[in-house]
C-alpha cells in the first residue's frame, strides 16, 4: 500500500524554487532517510507531506488523499511528527504537555505515563518543562510523535541532543514500529549510525533530487572505493597494487573499487608480512558527501 506519493511536486516560495520537481513513493513499513544540507528542501518536503503547505505544481497524496484539504484532517490522527527545535510549554510539566497533545489527538490520557517512561522521562514527568535539558525536550517531542501509534512518522533531526544510549534506544524503537507496519521518514543532515535502520535514502541538494535508492544501489551508483587499512612492517605489495598504496598517519591505505574488492582481498591475504587488515566500505556519510560535492560544488554540504 502506498502511504506517501509525490508526483512531480514542486514548491516555489516568492519566486525562489525551494523544491524542484520531485517524485517519491513510500510503501507501508518502509523507512526512508531524507538527507541534505541546510536549505536543501528537506523541511519543505516534510511540510508538503504534512499538508502544512500546498505544492506549487504537482500532486501530493498521503494515505491516498490530498493532505492540504480540510476534510483530510482526520488523517492526522494516524500521523506523528517531530520537528527541529520545539521547546513546548515551559510552565507545564512533561506529563501535562503530553496529555494536552493526547487530548488534541484523541488518544487516551492513560497511555501518557507509559509513553514517557518508554522515552526515558518517567522520573521527570512531574517536573516542569522549563527545567528540562535539550535532550529531554527532544525525548518529550518523540513521545508526542509516538502518541496513538501513528502509521506514518515524520521525524526532523530526531536524535539531536540525544546521548548515544538514547540514540540507540530510539533506533530500536523505530525498528519496532517498522515491524508493526509503521512508515517512517527520517530527515537529517547525515546521521552517523542510521544506515542499518533505513531501507532507502533520498539525497537532496539545493532543492534538487541528487540520488534516491537503497544504500547498496547508491554505493554502486556513486562507485566509491572501499578502503583497505593494512598493517605490517615487512609488507611489500606486488605491482600494480604498490603504486596505489597511500601512506597516512594511521598506517597504509589502499583504495579499491568495490568490484575488485574480493579479488584483491584474496591476493592480499596470501602475502607474507601482512599483520592486520581492515576493510572500510563507503559509509552513508561518504556517499552523501560524494553526491553533494559532485553536484552542488565543493563548498556545499559543509
Amino acid at each position: 500500500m502506498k502511504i506517501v506519493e509525490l508526483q512531480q511536486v514542486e514548491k516555489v516560495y516568492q519566486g525562489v524554487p525551494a523544491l524542484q520537481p520531485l517524485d517519491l513513493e513510500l510503501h507501508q513499513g518502509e523507512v526512508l532517510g531524507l538527507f541534505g544540507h541546510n536549505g536543501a528542501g528537506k523541511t519543505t518536503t516534510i511540510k508538503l507531506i504534512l499538508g502544512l503547505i500546498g505544492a506549487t505544481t504537482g500532486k501530493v497524496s498521503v494515505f491516498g488523499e490530498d493532505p492540504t484539504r480540510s476534510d483530510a484532517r482526520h488523517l492526522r490522527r494516524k500521523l506523528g511528527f517531530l520537528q527541529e527545535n520545539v521547546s513546548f510549554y515551559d510552565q507545564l510539566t512533561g506529563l501535562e504537555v503530553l496529555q494536552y497533545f493526547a487530548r488534541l489527538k484523541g488518544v487516551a490520557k492513560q497511555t501518557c505515563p507509559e509513553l514517557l517512561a518508554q522515552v526515558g522521562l518517567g522520573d521527570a514527568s512531574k517536573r516542569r518543562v522549563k527545567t528540562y535539558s535539550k535532550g529531554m525536550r527532544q525525548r518529550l517531542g518523540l513521545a508526542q510523535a509516538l502518541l496513538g501509534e501513528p502509521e506514518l512518522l515524520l521525524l526532523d533531526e530526531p536524535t539531536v541532543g540525544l546521548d548515544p544510549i538514547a540514540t540507540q534506544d530510539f533506533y530500536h524503537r523505530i525498528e519496532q514500529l517498522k515491524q508493526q507496519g509503521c512508515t517512517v521518514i527520517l530527515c537529517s543532515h547525515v546521521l552517523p549510525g542510521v544506515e542499518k535502520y533505513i531501507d532507502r535514502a533520498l539525497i537532496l541538494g539545493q532543492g534538487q533530487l541528487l540520488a534516491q535508492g537503497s544504500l547498496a544501489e547508491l554505493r554502486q551508483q556513486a562507485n566509491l572505493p572501499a578502503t583497505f587499512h593494512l598493517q605490517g612492517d615487512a609488507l611489500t605489495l606486488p605491482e600494480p597494487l604498490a603504486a596505489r598504496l597511500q601512506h597516512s598517519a594511521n598506517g597504509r591505505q589502499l583504495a579499491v573499487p568495490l568490484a575488485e574488492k574480493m579479488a584483491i582481498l584474496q591476493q592480499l591475504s596470501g602475502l607474507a608480512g601482512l599483520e592486520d587488515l581492515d576493510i572500510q566500505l563507503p559509509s552513508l556519510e561518504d556517499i552523501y558527501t560524494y553526491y553533494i560535492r559532485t553536484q552542488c560544488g565543493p563548498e556545499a554540504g559543509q
Partner: protein
Amino acid sequence: MNAILSVANKEFHDGLRNRWVLSICIILSVLAIGLAYFGAAAAGKVGFTSLSSTIVSLASLAVFIIPLIALMLAYDGVVGEDENGTLLLLMTYPLSRWQLLLGKMVGQGAVMAFSTLVGFGSSAVMMGLFSDTDWQSLLSAYGVFILSAILLGWVFIAIAYVISASVSEKSKAAGIALICWFVFVLVFDLGLLGLLVGTQGNVDETLFPYLLLLNPTDIFRLVNISWFADQNLTGLMAIAQQTQFTTLSLFGSLLAWLLLPVSAAMVIFNRRGL
C-alpha cells in the same frame, strides 16, 4: 468543540501556573478595595463613600489597567507559539486553525473573567459587609461594572490576537500592543477633545457622541456612567450625557467591538504562513 475546550483548558491552566491569574486578582482587588475605602481621602475622610462615586472612580481607573493587562496577557498568543515551534506542531494535529485560535481566546478570556470577578468582586463583598449600602443596589451596580470590565478585557484580548497573528516576532507584537493601548486609552480622547476645542465646539452635536462608540474604552466608561447618571461629569463623558445611550445598547456595542477583532484575527491567522 472538544478541541476548542482542550486548548482553552490548557491556556487557563497555563494562566494559573505562571501566576497571571493570581497577579491580576491581587492588582484588581487592591485597586478596588483601596478606592472603595480611601476614595474620599481627598475630601478629608476615610471610609466607604457612596456606591456611585466608588464605581465611577473605579471605572476610570479600570479603563487604563484592564486593556493593559489584557494586551500583556495575550500579545504573544500566536507569535509566541510560532517562536516555540509548537504552532507548526499543533497544525499537524487534527485541529483546525480557527479551533486553535478560538480555544486560546476562550482560555485567556476565562483567565481575564475569573480574575476580574474575584478582584472586583472582593471589593463588592467588603463594601456589602462594612458599609451601609444595601446588597441589592450593590450587586446590580457591581454586576454591571464587572460584566462591562470583563467585556472590555475580552475586547483587548481579541485585539491582542489580531496583533499577534499579524506579526512574525514577539518583540514587535509587544511594541504594537503598547502603541495600541496608548491610542485607545489616551490619544483617542485627546484627539476628540482637540477636535472640539479646535472647532470651538462647532461640531454636529448629535453626531459627536457617536464618535465615542469608536473606542471600546469610552463605551466601557459610558456603560458605568450611564448607570449612575446623577454624577457630575467632566470632560468627554459630559458630552455623551446629552445623548442617552441605553445600557443595553452600550453592551451591544461592546459585543460588536468583541466580534470585530475576533473575526479579524481569524482571517489574518488563516492567511498566516507556516
